[in-house]
């Protein structure tokens, strides 16, 4: 078994295959010319799903059942006329639970969620998110209103979470019929009321698969953890992180107390904090953080986007806007495994066998 990384770039999808954690083989670009905001393998049946956007041809989803050799495009994805909104981009695809074989979720801009019940052929908007009573208090920032995180509680088919930039974190306890804003104690330093109910800017939201009441959040204004399904949040970036700002977030599937972030100089800048590209790790649920920079460049002003990191039980992976793909080898050394790719927008990993 080896690792297959699906690396979405501004110019298409690349497949990177590793036989060990230092030697990778590159295939691509597939879906040439499309901006691949997110690409993922559905572990239920091996289908590749890609959220692809094009400056001229708009937002799409593509899928492949033969490892990327051939592709099918979903039927046109759009928003109902009465909403007054147009779909600007597809952002994130989340396959459904094992007991929901044809179901997938899709997050998009402007702050919208879709569901497919036919394996990605067609997508229906979630009206409760589209018509959310707080929507008039969501303020699109420079990145738009992006529904980028969709997390499913593996124990409860009714419970799920979404993270939407400039809106916040929302939880549904009834299969998506209603959504509760879950932003208590999250700071929105750019808001007139920093502790408003909505208007917050999560950059990435992850549920811990082995401890599903625990959520982690890299926000525009800090790193947070929740131990009560998002009912309240604890800010964690005071101890050892150079900044609370950043986009990617990684977890250790075997340890709910571990998390990894890549701090950036905040707000208007969006590049490595202190001119030094580093991943920061906590092993004590955010009490303390330590730098993991072994193998990373001494000086760098890199940007790692919200979808551009991934993790599995053995390693961590991320890609930069400069087109470098890094994998963690032997648990403590980063290896720049592939370089000179187009700007990397997304990374997901799965296992593969030759």
């Amino acid at each position: 078994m080896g690792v297959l990384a699906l690396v979405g770039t501004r110019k298409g999808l690349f497949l990177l295959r590793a036989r060990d954690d230092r030697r990778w083989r590159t295939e691509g670009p597939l879906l040439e010319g499309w901006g691949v905001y997110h690409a993922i393998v559905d572990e239920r049946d091996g289908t590749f799903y890609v959220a692809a956007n094009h400056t001229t041809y708009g937002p799409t989803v593509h899928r492949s059942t033969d490892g990327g050799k051939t592709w099918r495009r979903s039927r046109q994805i759009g928003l109902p006329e009465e909403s007054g909104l147009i779909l600007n981009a597809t952002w994130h695809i989340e396959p459904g639970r094992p007991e929901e074989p044809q179901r997938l979720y899709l997050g998009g801009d402007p702050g919208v969620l879709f569901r497919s019940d036919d394996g990605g052929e067609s997508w229906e908007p979630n009206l409760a998110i589209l018509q959310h009573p707080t929507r008039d208090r969501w303020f699109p920032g420079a990145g738009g209103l992006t529904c980028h995180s969709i997390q499913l509680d593996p124990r409860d088919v009714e419970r799920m979470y979404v993270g939407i930039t400039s809106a916040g974190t929302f939880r549904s306890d009834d299969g998506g019929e209603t959504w509760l804003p879950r932003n208590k104690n999250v700071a929105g330093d750019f808001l007139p009321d920093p502790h408003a109910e909505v208007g917050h800017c999560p950059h990435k939201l992850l549920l811990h698969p082995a401890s599903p009441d625990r959520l982690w959040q890299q926000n525009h204004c800090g790193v947070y953890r929740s131990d009560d399904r998002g009912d309240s949040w604890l800010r964690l970036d005071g101890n050892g992180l150079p900044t609370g700002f950043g986009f990617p977030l990684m977890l250790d599937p075997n340890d709910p107390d571990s998390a990894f972030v890549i701090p950036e100089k905040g707000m208007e800048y969006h590049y490595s904090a202190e001119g030094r590209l580093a991943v920061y790790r906590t092993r004590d649920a955010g009490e303390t953080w330590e730098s993991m920079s072994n193998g990373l460049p001494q000086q760098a002003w890199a940007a790692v986007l919200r979808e551009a990191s991934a993790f599995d039980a053995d390693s961590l992976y991320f890609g930069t806007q400069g087109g470098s793909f890094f994998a963690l080898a032997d648990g403590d050394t980063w290896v720049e495994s592939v370089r000179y790719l187009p700007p990397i927008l997304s990374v997901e990993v799965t296992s593969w066998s030759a």
Partner: protein
Amino acid sequence: MVRVVVPSVLATQAEGRARFDIEAETVMDALRALPVSDLLFNERGELRQHLNVYVDGTDVRDSGGLACPLAGAHEVRVVAMVSGG
């Protein structure tokens, strides 16, 4: 019968075909008949912003828009605007 020509990214989405011979009364009808029409129009049926459409070399914006009758026309060419990096 009019010949519709599309750029390479669209051809890739149409099983490699860049040319289509179509019976249509208007430019809109011809574009709607393409297997990639969802990539040309948004969900409101509006032509995407960064597309140009030429009928025998004339921009449809200068000749009545997409409702323009095709009578006598030979070629409809879809061209992505020069943009981006």
